[in-house]
């Protein structure tokens, strides 16, 4: 099993190994974040810094021949607390 090589025994180990690294977070409501992970807890509440949020907005008004237009909004935040229940997925940077 690869887990023995990577030292991951439980899913939270993946998050622990990503502390102080830039992570990708997928949130409910078609939002995603990238930022430096500073802290987390068992709820997956997160503290992140240097965050860019990307929000996908489907625009039904701009729909042409059945294909709806997706607008992307971005914003940056210096420091962010993310409530854990909004988190769907966290992906750490590629391990080397």
């Amino acid at each position, binding site marked *: 099993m*690869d887990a023995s090589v990577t030292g991951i025994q*439980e899913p*939270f*180990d993946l998050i622990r190994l990503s502390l102080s690294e830039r992570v990708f977070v997928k949130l409910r409501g078609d939002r995603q974040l990238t930022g430096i992970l500073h802290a987390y807890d068992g709820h997956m509440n997160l503290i992140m810094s240097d965050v860019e949020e990307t929000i996908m907005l489907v625009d039904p008004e701009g729909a042409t021949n059945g294909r709806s237009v997706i607008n992307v909004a971005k914003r940056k935040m210096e420091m962010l607390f993310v409530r854990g229940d909004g988190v769907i997925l966290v*992906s750490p940077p*590629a391990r080397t």
Partner: protein
Amino acid sequence: MDESPRPPSDQSPPPPPPAQSHTGSPTDFLKGVVGKRVIVRLTSGVDYKGVLSCLDGFMNIALEQTEEHVNGVITNRYGDSFIRGNNVLYISAAEEI
């Protein structure tokens, strides 16, 4: 007081043992798929295909070589990923256990 030894009862034979390959608890299944390729479907309908590194009691999942599929189309790839358990609808074995 049981005075006499009971005669062997042929009236009710024990049920035949069920086929071994299809028994086991959900936990046994999950133990069996760790390290194997799986498909994780979220309640949103998004699928994540990858190698299951491990999971915990909340059904939080660590996947390796993750592909995100939306409507059958690959929309993202992650080397590793952590999926928060509350989003999980099912975990399907994608290879022989």
